[in-house]
C-alpha cells in the first residue's frame, strides 16, 4: 500500500478545522488559507501521479474498523476530477471570506474546512456507509454557514434545504441497508458489478433518485436552491454551486447507472422529462429575476438539467459531457457568485436595478464578468461549451425531441445572462454610490484570475480533463450497454440516389 494521500487530504483540513476553533480571527484566517492551499498542492500531486488509463481504482486505502465497516478510500477518474475541483475552489472561498465575514470568524473557517473534509470524503469513499456519512454530513456545515452567517431570511432558507433533503436521505439509507444485506458487501466497487433483479432495481433506483434529484437539484424539487443561494454568504454560494450541486450528479454516476442499469434505462423518460421541463422552466424564471443571486441560482438548475440528460444518454459523449458540464459549471457559477459578491461588498444589495454602468468605473471587473457570462452561455473556447455540446450530442442519439428542447437553453441562457450583464455593467452610471465603487482589488483579482485561466484551459484543451475519465467511461459503458435505449433517429442506409424532385442539374456536374 502506497502513501495514504487521500487520508492526508482529509486529515489536513480536519486538523486545521479543530485548530481554528481555538485561534483568534486573524490566525484562523491564515490557518484556513494555509490548510486549503496545502490541500490544493496535494490535489495537484494527486492529479499528476494519477495513472491515466491505469487501474480503475487508484490510491486505494483500506483499514478495517469493526465488523464489515471499513475505512475504504480510493478514486477513479471521475472522483479525481471532482476532488481537484473541490480543492481548487476551497482557497478561493477562504479568500472571498477574508473581509466579508467579521463575526465568529474561527467558527466560520472551521465550518468551511469541515465542508472540505466531507466533500473529499464523499468523492473518495469506497464503502457504502462511509459514503453515506460524508454525503449527508456534508450538509451540516452548509446549514450552519447559511443559518449563522447568512442573510435576513436565513432560517427559512436553511429549513427549506433541510426539509427537501430529509426525505430523500431516509429513502436512500433504507435502500443502502437493503443492498448491503442482499449483496452481503458494503464495498462500492463490488456493488458496481453486482446485478440486482430488474424489478428490485427500479425501487432502489427511485430511492436513490429521491436523494440525488434534490441535491442536483432537479425540477420540481429545486426551490430550496434559490433561497439557499440568496441567503448564503458569497463563499457559501461558491461552494454550494461549485461542489455541493455536483454530489447529485456524482451519485447518479457512481450508483444509479452502474448498479441499476436496467432501471436507469427503464426510467430514462422520467429523467429526460424532468430535465427538459427544467431547462425551459427555470430559464424563463431566471429571465424575470431582479435579484442577481437568484438569477444565477435558477440558471444553475437549467445547467444541471444538461448534466442529467447527458448522464442518462448511455453513451460516451453524454456521460463525459455531463462530467464536463459539472466541472465547468462548478468553475463558472462559482466565479459568477464571486462577481456578485464583489459588488455586493461595495453596495450591499443584490438588486440588479441598483447597478448600472460598471464598465465605466470598473473595467477590469467588467472584463472578467464578461468572460464568465460568456462561459455560462456556453461560448466555444470556454469550459461549458465542451460539456454542453457533448452532453446534448449524446442526448440527440437517444431522443431528438429532448435534445431540441434542451438546446433551447442556449437561446434562453443567452437572453437572461446578457440581459443581466447589460443592466449591471452597461449603460450610464446609475447613481453616485455606483460611481464611488472601485475596481477589483488585488485580492479579488487573485480570486477570479485563476478561475478564468481554468475556464479557458478547459475550453481550448479539454483533453487534460477528458483523458482521466476516458477509461472509466468505457468501463461504465461496458456495464450498462446491455440496457442502452435504441434512440429515435435510426437512419436507414442510403441508396446513393438523390431523390428526383428537380435534380436536373447535378447529373453532369463535375462532382467535387
Amino acid at each position, binding site marked *: 500500500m502506497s502513501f495514504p494521500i487521500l487520508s492526508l487530504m482529509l486529515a489536513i483540513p480536519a486538523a486545521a478545522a479543530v485548530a481554528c476553533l481555538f485561534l483568534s480571527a486573524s490566525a484562523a484566517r491564515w490557518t484556513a488559507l494555509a490548510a486549503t492551499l496545502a490541500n490544493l498542492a496535494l490535489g495537484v500531486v494527486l492529479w499528476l501521479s494519477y495513472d491515466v488509463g491505469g487501474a480503475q481504482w487508484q490510491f486505494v486505502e483500506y483499514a478495517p474498523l*469493526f465488523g464489515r*465497516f471499513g475505512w475504504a478510500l480510493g478514486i477513479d477518474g471521475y472522483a479525481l476530477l471532482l476532488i481537484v475541483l473541490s480543492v481548487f475552489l476551497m482557497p478561493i472561498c477562504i479568500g472571498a471570506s477574508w473581509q466579508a465575514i467579521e463575526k465568529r470568524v474561527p467558527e466560520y473557517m472551521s465550518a468551511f474546512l469541515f465542508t472540505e473534509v466531507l466533500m473529499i470524503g464523499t468523492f473518495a469513499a469506497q464503502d457504502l*456507509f462511509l459514503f*453515506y456519512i460524508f454525503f449527508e454530513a456534508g*450538509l*451540516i456545515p452548509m446549514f450552519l454557514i447559511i443559518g449563522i452567517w447568512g442573510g435576513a431570511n436565513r432560517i427559512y432558507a436553511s429549513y427549506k434545504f433541510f*426539509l427537501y*433533503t*430529509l426525505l430523500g436521505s*431516509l429513502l436512500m*439509507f433504507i435502500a443502502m*441497508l437493503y443492498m448491503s444485506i442482499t449483496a452481503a458487501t458494503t464495498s462500492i466497487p463490488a456493488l458496481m458489478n453486482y446485478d440486482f433483479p430488474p424489478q428490485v432495481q427500479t425501487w432502489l433506483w427511485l430511492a436513490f433518485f429521491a436523494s440525488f434529484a434534490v441535491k442536483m437539484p432537479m425540477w420540481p*424539487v429545486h*426551490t*430550496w436552491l*434559490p433561497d439557499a443561494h440568496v441567503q448564503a454568504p458569497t463563499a457559501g454560494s461558491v461552494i454550494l454551486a461549485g461542489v455541493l450541486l455536483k454530489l447529485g450528479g456524482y451519485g447518479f454516476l457512481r450508483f444509479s447507472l452502474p448498479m441499476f442499469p436496467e432501471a436507469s434505462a427503464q426510467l430514462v423518460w422520467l429523467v429526460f422529462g424532468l430535465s427538459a421541463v427544467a431547462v425551459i*422552466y427555470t430559464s424563463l*424564471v431566471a429571465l424575470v429575476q431582479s435579484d442577481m443571486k437568484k438569477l444565477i441560482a435558477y440558471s444553475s438548475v437549467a445547467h444541471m438539467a444538461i448534466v442529467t440528460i447527458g448522464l442518462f444518454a448511455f453513451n460516451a*459523449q453524454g456521460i463525459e*459531457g455531463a462530467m464536463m458540464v459539472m466541472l465547468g459549471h462548478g468553475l463558472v457559477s462559482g466565479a459568477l457568485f464571486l462577481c456578485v459578491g464583489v459588488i455586493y461588498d461595495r453596495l450591499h444589495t443584490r438588486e440588479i436595478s441598483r447597478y448600472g454602468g460598471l*464598465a465605466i468605473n470598473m473595467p477590469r471587473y467588467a472584463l472578467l464578468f464578461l468572460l464568465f457570462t460568456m462561459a455560462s452561455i456556453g461560448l*466555444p*473556447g470556454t469550459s461549458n*461549451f465542451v460539456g454542453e*455540446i*457533448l452532453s*446534448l450530442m449524446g442526448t*440527440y*442519439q437517444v431522443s*431528438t*425531441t429532448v435534445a*431540441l428542447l434542451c*438546446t433551447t437553453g*442556449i*437561446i434562453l441562457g*443567452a*437572453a437572461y445572462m446578457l*440581459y443581466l450583464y*447589460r443592466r449591471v*455593467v452597461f449603460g*450610464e452610471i446609475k447613481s453616485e454610490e455606483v460611481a464611488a465603487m472601485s475596481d477589483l482589488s488585488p485580492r479579488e483579482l487573485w480570486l477570479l484570475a485563476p478561475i478564468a485561466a481554468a475556464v479557458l484551459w478547459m475550453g*481550448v*484543451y*479539454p*483533453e487534460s480533463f*477528458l483523458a482521466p475519465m*476516458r477509461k472509466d*467511461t468505457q468501463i461504465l459503458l461496458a456495464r450498462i450497454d446491455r440496457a442502452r435505449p435504441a434512440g*429515435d*433517429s435510426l*437512419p*436507414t442506409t*442510403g441508396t*446513393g*440516389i438523390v431523390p428526383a424532385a428537380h435534380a*436536373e*442539374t447535378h447529373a453532369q*456536374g463535375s*462532382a*467535387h
Partner: protein
Amino acid sequence: MTSILFIVFVPLVAAIVAGFANKSFGATLPKAITTGGLFLASALSWPIFIGFLTGANEATVTPVLHFIHSGTFDVSWALRVDALTAVMLVVITSVSALVHLYSWGYMAEDPDQSRFFAYLSLFTFAMLMLVTADNLIQMFFGWEGVGLASYLLIGFWFRKPSANAAAIKAFVVNRVGDLGFMLGIFGTYLVFNTVSIPAILAAAPSMAGSTIGFLWFRADTMTVLCLLLFVGAMGKSAQLGLHTWLPDAMEGPTPVSALIHAATMVTAGVFMVCRLSPMFQTSPTAMGFVTFIGAATCLFAATVGTTQTDIKRVIAYSTCSQLGYMFFAAGVGAYGAAMFHLFTHAFFKALLFLGAGSVIHAMHHEQDMRYYGGLRKAIPITFWGMLLGTLAITGVGIYGVGGFAGYHSKDAIIEVAWAAGSPAASMVGVFAALLTSFYSWRLMFLTFWGEPRWAASEHIQHALHDAHGGAHDHAHDAHHDHAHDAHGHEAHAAEHGSAHAHGHDDAHHPDPAGEDAGHAPAVESRGFNEIPKGTGGYHPHESPVAMLIPLIVLSIGAVASGFVFHHWFIDPETAGGFWKGALYFNEHLMHEMHQVPLLVQLAATIVMLSGLLIAYLTYIRSPEAPAKFADTFQPLYQFLLRKWYFDELYHFLFVRPAFAIGRLLWHRGDEGTIDRFGPNGSAWVVQVGSRVAGRLQTGYVYTYAFVMLIGLTAAITWAIAG
C-alpha cells in the same frame, strides 16, 4: 503552409495585446499593433490566393492542437486552406486591414480606441478560424466567436441603451439560428460518425435516399441535416425570419458595419452552404428551400430599403438583399456564382459603408439622409468613392464588354437561376435589381445632389453651437457626442422623427410596455423636400487621409473585381480548375448560363437603368413626388417603413410571452404550487407536530443530525451483528 498560422494567430495576439494595453500606453501602440498585424496577415493571404489562381497551390490542412475526444467523437484544431478558404482569406484580411486603417480617422477622438481595435482584431481571428475550419466544431467555434465580437462591437458605445438592446438582439437572434446549427452537427455526427468536413462530404452522396427519425416524424436524412444546418446560416446571414438583428446592428460604429455586417461575418452562412455544397447537392428539397429563402429575403429587404431614411439602414437592408442573391445562387446549384458575388460584394459594400461613414463623419454624426443634400462638392473624394460603389452594386456594364463588379456577379446569378430551371427566382432577382438600383440612387441623390438641408439637423446645430462656444473646433469629441446621443435620445428622436432611433426593439425588458416606448416607432413621414433648406453656416470637411485611402483601395475593387476574377470564379472552362473540388462546381450549369434568352441576359441592365430613371424623376426632377406617393399609398408605405412589422410581430409572439410566462412560472409555479404544497406545507405539519412535542427550539440542524444518528446506529448495529 505555415504562413496560415501567422495569418490566423497574429490578429489574436494583436487583440490580446491591445486589449490588455494599459491606458498609460496611450492608444497609438495598440492601434499600430492591430493594424500592422492585419496588414501583415493580408500581405500573407494574397500570395496564397494567387497561388490558387495560378493553380500552383493544393489544398492543405495544418494541424494545431488536439481538441475534444470523447468516444468515437474526435476533433482537432486545424487550419484548412483550399481555394474556397483562400477567397475568404483575402476578403477578410484585406477588408479588415482597411477597416483598421479607416478607424484611425473615424475613431480618432474616442477615448476607448484600444478596446475598439482589440475587438476588431478579435473578430478577424474568429472569422479566420471559421473559414479555415476542417470540422464542424471548429466552424462553430468561429461562428460563435464572430457572434461575440459582433455583440461587443454593436454595443461598443455601451452607454447608449439602443446600442445595448441591439447587441443583445443580435446575439439572441443568432442563437436561434445556432440551435439549428447545433442540432445539425448532432445529426451529422449521428449519421456519419464524424464531424470532419472532408469525411462528411465524401460520405454524403451515399447517404442520399436514406430516411431518419426526427422529433415525431421520419424524413429524408440529408434533407433534415441540410435544413438544420441552413437554419444556422439563416441566422448568421440575416435571412428572412432571422434578419431582424441586422438593421439594428447599425448601432455599432460604422467601420464595424463595413467589416462585420457587410463584407465578412454576414456572409458566413453563404460560405457554410458553399463549403458543404456536396452535402446540399444530395437534397433537392433543401436546395429548394435555400432558393426560396434567398429569393424571399432578396425581395423583402429590397422593398424595405426603398423607404428607410437612415443612410446606414438603407445599406444594411441592401446587404440583407444581396445576401439573398447569394443564397438563391447557392440554392440553384451555382455555388461558384454565390462565392463570386460574396467576393465582389465584400468590396463594394465595404466601400459603400465606409463612404457612408465618411459622410456621417462630415455631417457630425447625422445619419438621416433627409438632412443631407448637396454634399457632392463638399466631400468630393467620398462622393466619387460612393458613386463607384453605387455603379458596382447596381451592376452597370455594357453587354458583351464588361462592367463594374456587380454587373458580373449579380447578373450571373439572375442568369444562372434561369438556366437552372428556376425562372421564378430569376424574376424575383430582376425585380429586386430594379429596387436595388432605385434605393441606391435614392441614397446618392438625397445625399450628394439637391440643396443642402443641413440647418435643420440637431447634430449640425450642436456642432455649430459648440464651435460657436469656442470649446471645440470642427474636430469634435466623438465620445462626447455619443454620450450626448444617449442623454438626449428621446427628445432628439421625437424631434427628428427618425425611424432609426426608435425602430429598435428593446427585446429584453421585463416590462416591455413600460420602457419600450420605441415599440411603436415615432415615424414621421415628413418628406425630405419639406425640410428647410440651408447650410446653417456649416461647412462639412472631407475626411482625413486614413479614411480616404481605404475608400480609394476599395473603389478599385468595386470597379475591377468582377471583370478581373469572373474567369476563375464562374467561367465553365476555367473555374473548375480553380475550385479543385473546394465546392461543388457544376460546369454544365455554368455553360447553360450563357444560353439563356437574350432578354434575361439584358434584364438586369434594363431594370438597373429603370431604377436610376425612377430615382432621378422622383428625387431630382419632382422632389415632391415621394411624399405624395407615401400619402397616396399610406398603408403600403407604412408597411415598408416599419419593415413588414417583423419586430412588432416577434415582440408580441416571443418577447412578451417569455417574460409573462417566466413571471407566471415563478409566482404561480415555484411559489404558488411547489413551495406551497411542498416545503411550506410540510413545514406547517412539522411545526404543528413539533408544537405538540414542545420541541420547536431544537432547530432543524439538530433534528437532521438526530435522524442521521439513528440511521448510523442502525447501520453500525447491523455491521457489528453481521
